Every structure is written in structure tokens, then in C-alpha cells.
């Protein structure tokens, strides 16, 4: 598992240009969202959490699709499956690496959101927790679906089509929690949303790991 993770991390480090491109994509989508609303500072601040997570979600499809792209070249996935480990290890290695990358992306997009929408917070620890839990919810089913869609025609369309309806609860909870952190939480509602995110993560990290073996079997 450590080795699988190390391999993924190395791969990501060697393709850091890709990460940079994804970040620029996310940041430019944040810029575009503000044009959709107009230069109303109060409104932008209100919607900032939603925009940030939508930007993150859109960029995540690029990251996730990329994570299996490399395995499809020269049929590298089959080689990995021949290793004397369970496919689950490969899955968790990839999902953890994707998660790490998305957390980085989230942490990088947050300052952009602060600058563009004037929606900052000093409660960085809790914000980091929400970003970590929310992106974990994206990466677990996303990695599984990327493994499927990487092998079919028109993979660019299919991954979002399958992933977006599925992660509605994670997106909802992340947006709600982030906006409670940024805009203030007078009713103490943050706890239930974070618990919901944690439950979503627990369900999908275990279920997708269980099912991954069937997805890649020949």
C-alpha cells in the first residue's frame, strides 16, 4: 500500500505541470463564476463557498481522469494487476494520491476565493478539515469511476455524468460547512454537516474499495 502510494506520488510529482494546469483551470473558473453574478460584492461573498466547491469539482474531473490515463498507456494497468498484491491496494493508493492532490488544490483555491470574493476566515483548521473531508468524498467514488471511464470511448463525458449526481450530498455538505465557516455560524450547524461528510466518506471509501476488484478484473 505504501509502495502503491509512493508510486502514485512520484508520478504526480513528475507531472507537476499537469497539477499547475488544473489549478489554473480551477482559478479561472472561479473568475468566470464572478462574471455570472456581476460585481455585487455582497452577493459574491454569499455564494463564495458554492463557487469554490464547484471550481474544485470541475477541476477534480480533470485530476481524476488523468490518474488512470497513465495506466492505459502500454496497458500498464494489467502489469500492475499482475503484481502479487490485491487490486484493492492499487485502488487505495490511487484514491489516496488523488485525495492528496485535491486537498492541495482546495488549499490553493481558497486564497483565490479570499481575494476574488472577499470571503476569508481565520478558522483555518476547521476549514482544512472541511476541505479534507469534502475532497475525500470526491476522490473515493471518482477514482473508481475513473478506472471504468478511462477504458471506454468518450471518457471525457462519461466521468462527470456518473460522478456528479453521486456526490450531491458531499457537495451540499461541503458548501454548507464552508459557508458556515466563512460567513459565521450563529446556530452551531457546522457539526452535523461535518458528520454527514464523514459518514459519506466512510461509506464510499469502504464500498468503492470493496467493488474495485471487480471493475479491473479481466
Amino acid at each position, binding site marked *: 500500500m505504501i509502495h502503491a502510494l509512493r508510486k502514485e506520488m512520484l508520478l504526480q510529482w513528475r507531472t507537476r505541470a499537469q497539477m499547475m494546469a488544473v489549478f489554473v483551470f480551477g482559478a479561472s473558473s472561479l473568475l468566470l463564476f464572478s462574471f455570472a453574478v456581476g460585481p455585487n460584492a455582497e452577493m459574491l461573498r454569499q455564494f463564495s463557498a458554492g463557487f469554490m466547491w464547484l471550481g474544485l469539482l470541475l477541476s477534480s474531473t480533470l485530476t481524476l481522469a488523468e490518474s488512470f490515463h497513465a495506466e492505459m498507456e502500454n496497458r500498464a494497468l494489467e502489469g500492475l494487476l499482475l503484481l502479487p498484491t490485491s487490486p484493492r491496494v492499487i485502488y487505495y493508493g490511487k484514491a489516496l494520491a488523488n485525495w492528496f492532490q485535491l486537498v492541495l488544490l482546495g488549499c490553493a483555491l481558497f486564497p483565490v476565493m479570499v481575494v476574488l470574493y472577499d470571503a476569508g476566515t481565520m478558522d483555518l483548521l476547521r476549514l482544512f478539515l472541511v476541505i479534507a473531508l469534502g475532497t475525500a468524498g470526491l476522490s473515493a*467514488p471518482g477514482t*473508481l*469511476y475513473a478506472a*471504468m*471511464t478511462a*477504458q*471506454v*470511448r*468518450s471518457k471525457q*463525458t*462519461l466521468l462527470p*455524468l*456518473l460522478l*456528479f*449526481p*453521486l456526490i*450531491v*450530498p458531499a457537495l*451540499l*455538505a461541503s458548501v*454548507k460547512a464552508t459557508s458556515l465557516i466563512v460567513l459565521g455560524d450563529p446556530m452551531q450547524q457546522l457539526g*452535523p*454537516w461535518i458528520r*454527514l461528510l464523514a*459518514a*459519506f466518506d466512510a*461509506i*464510499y471509501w469502504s*464500498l*468503492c474499495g470493496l*467493488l474495485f476488484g*471487480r*471493475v479491473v*478484473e479481466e
Partner: protein
Amino acid sequence: MTKRVLPGIVLLAIGAYFGFVVALANFNGITSLGFGIPTGIQATIAALCAVAGALFFLSVDDVGESVGAAGWLAAAGVVCFAIGSYIGLFVAPPEQYMGEVQRIMYVHVPSAWCALLAMTIAFGSAILFLLVNDWKWDARMEGSIEVGVVLAFLLCCQGAIWAKPTWGVWWDWDPRLTTTAVLLFAFLGILALRRFVDDPVKRGVWSAVATIIAYVDVPIVYFSVRWWNSLHQQQSNPGTVSKQFWLPLRANAFGILFLMVAFIMIRARISALRLKQELAPPPLAEAQLGEAV
């Protein structure tokens, strides 16, 4: 008659009998037909028998037989649906507050039950396909996903038609409405996945995996949206609506249930035949093989 059509018919007959007896008892006060069983238990028997009978029909393997059974079932469904709709539209009184608009309930509520049931059948078929690797479960899964998608789409449309005069908006971010929409898109995505994968084995396994993942999402979506926003009235079932509305509601519930099962059977047969064609060796290779032998 195969071993499964007969118990299916018997169960459906018992279910339909008790359903109508309960409805009659509440509609016209006729209670002599119920063998003295309490109405609540009769209603439970009716619902359980209907669902169990439908499942027996679904498990018919013989292709020729299943087509005949599906035809009869669809005919029964049309009859039930016609009776229920007639009573619902012309006989049952309008609702006190919502007026005539409420009559959409007679199709809306049964559609909701059957949509969820179809998705549940898809979920069960997906698990069975992954466990036993039998192609018939793949065919049933595809059939029930498609029928479930159609029902969920109808459900959203009926909900919108009902919501406009009642709440003043076409759409509202209510938990059940939103969950249905999310479910609709999730299962549409699975159908798209099936179209894009050419290898039948991968197609079956992947769509089964996706079905399981999407189905598990349903309660989570439901609860998250409920925390987020809520307006929808409590679910309608024969317990929450006036007794005068029971008969059309039940008749339509049976009608749509029968139609749904019949459609799933026919659709499953189509995909089974398509699969057979796909898995069969191409005719040219067969001819060559024959020459070689």
C-alpha cells in the same frame, strides 16, 4: 405453466383480492368479504402479495413463457389502471383544500412506489449479478433501470404539474423531489455507461458496480437535502389519505405495478436476446471453423 408463473398468479390474485376488499370496505362499507381479518392486516397482505407475486413473475426464465406472462400482466395492469383512473377522475370526491389538482395523486403516489421498487429490483439484480455471474441478472438489471428511469421521469413531471398550482412553483428543493431528480440522473448515467462499453462482460460488471454505488447514495441524498431544505407534505399512503381515496389509489398502484413488471420482463428479454447475439460467434468464423473441421 412453469413453476414460477403459477405461484406468481396466485399471489397476485390474493393481493388484488385483499386490496379491493379493503378498498371496498372503506369506500362502500362492505366488510363481508374480508373473512373477518382486520383491515390493516388485509392491506399488508395485499401489498406483500402484490410485490412477491411480481417478483415471481420477474424470475421466469423461459423466454417464450415470459413473453406470454408479461402480456397478460400488462393487460391486467391496463384494466386496473383504467378502473382506478376512472374512479379517481369521476367518482371520488375532490379534496377539500387542493380541489381537483389532488387527483394527480392517484398516479403520482403509485409512480413513486413503483419507481423506487424498480430501482430496488435493479439494485438486487446488480448484487446477484456480481455474486453469481448469471447473465439473466444483467438483463433484469438493465430492464429495471430503464423502467425505473422512465417512472422517475414521470414522477418529476407529475410532481411539477402538481406543485405549480399548489405551491406556486414548478420546482422546489424538497428532499423527495430532489432525491428523485438525483436518482434519475444517476441511473441515466448508468444507462449511458452501458451504451459506451462494447465488451459485454465489462458492461455488465461495471453497470452493476455503478448501480450499487448509486443506490447506496439514495438515503444519503435524501437526508442531506432534508437538512438543507424542506417543504413537501408528508408522503401519501392509504393511512394518511381519506378512506374515500383508497380505492382509486390502490387500483392504480396495482395497475402501475403490473405494468412495471411486464415492461421490465419484456425489456429484460430484449436485452437477453441482444446479449445472445453479441456473445454468439460471428457467422463467418463459424463457417471457417466448419471447413477446418
